[in-house]
């Protein structure tokens, strides 16, 4: 299997040997001036911060309890009302406020997104580090495992796992982390390979530093930026995965997520009548994913100068 030059959606960026690591602080300083120049990245960061704030203060922002069956003045259930002053995104077939549901949904999305992404990046980075640094049999074995991982189609695997373990948020996070570390591992490994044979690493080895020290004190800082970049892409992937799994009915029933909202709206035929119940959750997902993507791409231009605007 030829070593593909690039990875999946993340393959939008092209990893190169001459990538320079650089300490965390300098990376963020560079990140700031890329932001000034790149309008899209600025948009990405602003939207991302907006959603993080919404998720953090969701209970305060949401005007109604998302499950509450609101009623009109004359006491009837406010069923499938189009967007109005009281209900900005209208109501569902049971009179529940769509706006509050979307706001509360942001919590789960970001929780699953960041948690799963952190887990995936943690596993992937370590596997990549070990494979890249030790090389030889270990590297070969780990990379074969990664190849097998690629043979496991993601959503079908999650479906089976959730069917076996019963649907809950933690099972979804587990399923996502079990499978998607493969991409991170491969990218980190190639990055470690390029860093590992740099002179200062050989010098440390000669000076008698233990493998662990070399790996985590010298090599790791250089790959932190790439790891963070991968984590950004993993966040968007995890959010998309959670929404998809909830949409097909394997989501956590006692939790509100954008996928769940779309699942209920799809079943009760909202796509015929209640467009306001279908559009907002979808737009929320798209906004978050696009925001993450642009932020990550701006961040990537520092980490991977090869792609700087030519």
């Amino acid at each position: 299997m030829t070593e593909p030059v690039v990875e999946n959606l993340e393959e939008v960026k092209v990893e190169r040997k001459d990538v320079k690591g650089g300490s965390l602080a300098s990376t963020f300083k560079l990140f700031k001036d890329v932001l000034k120049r790149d309008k899209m990245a600025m948009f990405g960061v602003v939207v991302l911060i907006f959603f993080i704030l919404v998720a953090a203060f969701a209970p305060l922002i949401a005007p109604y309890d998302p499950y509450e069956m609101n009623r009109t003045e004359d006491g009837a259930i406010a069923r499938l009302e189009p967007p109005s002053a009281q209900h900005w995104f209208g109501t569902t077939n049971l009179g529940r406020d769509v706006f509050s549901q979307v706001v509360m949904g942001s919590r789960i999305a970001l929780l699953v997104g960041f948690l799963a992404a952190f887990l995936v990046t943690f596993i992937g980075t370590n596997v990549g580090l070990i494979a890249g640094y030790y090389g030889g049999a270990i590297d070969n074995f780990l990379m074969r495992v990664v190849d097998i991982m690629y043979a496991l189609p993601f959503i079908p695997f999650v479906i089976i796992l959730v069917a076996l373990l019963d649907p809950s948020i933690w099972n979804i996070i587990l399923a996502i982390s079990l499978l998607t570390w493969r991409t991170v591992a491969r990218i980190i490994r190639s990055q470690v390979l390029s860093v590992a044979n740099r002179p200062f690493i050989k010098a440390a080895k000669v000076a008698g530093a233990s493998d662990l020290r070399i790996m985590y004190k010298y090599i790791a800082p250089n790959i932190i930026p790439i790891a963070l970049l991968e984590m950004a892409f993993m966040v968007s992937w995890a959010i998309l995965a959670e929404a998809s799994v909830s949409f097909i009915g394997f989501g956590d029933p006692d939790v509100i997520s954008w996928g769940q909202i779309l699942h209920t709206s799809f079943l009760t035929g909202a796509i015929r009548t209640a467009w306001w119940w279908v559009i907002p959750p979808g737009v929320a997902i798209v906004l978050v994913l696009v925001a993450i993507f642009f932020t990550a791409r701006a961040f990537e231009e520092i980490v991977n100068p090869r792609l700087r605007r030519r």
Partner: protein
Amino acid sequence: MVKKRNIVAVLLVLVLGLIVVGCGEDEADVSVEGLTQVPEVTMYTTTAEYDPVRYEAAFMVAENWEELGVEVNVRPLEFNSLIERVFDAEEKDFNAFILGWSGRIERLDPDMFLYSNFHSSQDMPGGNNAYGYFSEEYDQLAEAQREEMEIEERQKIVHELQDMLAEDIPKIALYYRDEYQAYNHERFDNFTVMPGEGIYNEWTPVEIEPLTDDTVLEIASTQDLDTLNPMTAQTVWEWKLLRLVYDKLVRLSPDVEPTPSAAEDWEIVDDVTVDVTLRDGMDFHDGEAVTVDDVKFTFDYMLEWGVPYFDTFLNPVDSVEVVADNVVRFNLVEPYAPFITNTLAQIPILPEHIWSDVVDGEEITHPDEWDNPEPIGSGPFKFEYWRRGEEIKLAANEDHFTPPKIDGLLQVLYGHAEGVLGALEQGDADMNAWRFEPLHIEQVRELDHLTLTEAPDIGYYYTGFNLREAPFDNHDFRKAMAHTVDYDTIIDALIHGYGQAGGAGAVLSPANEFWANPDMASYEFDLERAREILEEAGYTWDSTGRLYLPEE
């Protein structure tokens, strides 16, 4: 530079520390020392895809139970696995479940809902007594009512049985739901509406007349059949079609009168013997003649192998004998009042020449493992093909004694209720197989090529309890739970007013005026009252509001 990084690290550790401390065990609660918590309640319900109303109802009821301090884990299951887990599984691993009995016309007779649901003999796997309700007194009365041939007398026993259920509360009826369906009056006419079944009953396919040259009635459905084998079919989805392919001795007319079908006539010789004369000149779809031997074979075969779904209607039959070339005699074990309407009107006539060598022919251990791919019956419709997950086609059986006026019937499967409405709206389908979602009823009213039909519900939707283990083994607990169903919100919010409230222990819908007991004990929605009952029964709560069982 280095200093800044350390500060960040310290902060992180602090935050993590706080989280860990926050969710530690709180101090011991003196009032519940030595008591055991009420075990977590697992409640099965249908998936939202299958029935959004039951799905939402489950969460509403669960929410009220949690307010009383009971942990509830609501687990939506696909319909067939739900049926298997509740009725077929040997060990019942649920505490509560939400299901519904569809209102088939035969079920106007109370025997089904009273005897087959609660008689202790019906507790075997596949039996309808999933609750594990065992009461000597109830069993005797249930048997007495089915033997009582005198209608007024039987009514008194039936009312008494309902009072007992209202007292023991093995289950709570949540709501009765009116059957709203629609048909395309520009393409077919002369539909029959029957209580409990709406327009998709035994008579409609036979009596409707095509108005255009397209003579195949297309029915849009959301649930596919599970099997074509009459010995294992156990839901309304199979029987709405199988009862057209297999003929029955008797059919119930639209105004619920037993009318002769495969049987030309019948005579009640005495309380325990009934003679049935078979109509002559009838053939199975493969041309073989229908004889009394087939009728005798069917009953012997079913009694021999056991058919859980029909067990209630078969166990009164002691033996079947052929007394003349067109007369067959049924000897009953004890008098069975609804024998004609329940047994003769439901048991399909199986062709002996096919079923006799099924077991060894197909090297299976039990007939219900045979999938009967090409069902051969003597009913008004012949089986044509079944593309599983897509559609099933029946063709008219011209030489049936009541030949249908249409040429065929095509039942098409759509992923969800949405697809059914779309098909009706765009003229792909001519009628829907099952009731409309409340939301769709208003939309159908505006479509001028469809006629909306309404029929009262003879069945009911309920939450059943598992009386074999805690917490529902305790009668007081069940009495308290009877007050946790918010009927008004269910009717108003979930079914938009198209139905009536149920009641604790209720089994017969008000539409069944003759048999339903008007003055049953009723339990209104009142969580405080429920709390009082629990308190009187010795239940206690801890500081976080979690409910504990009384001391043994």
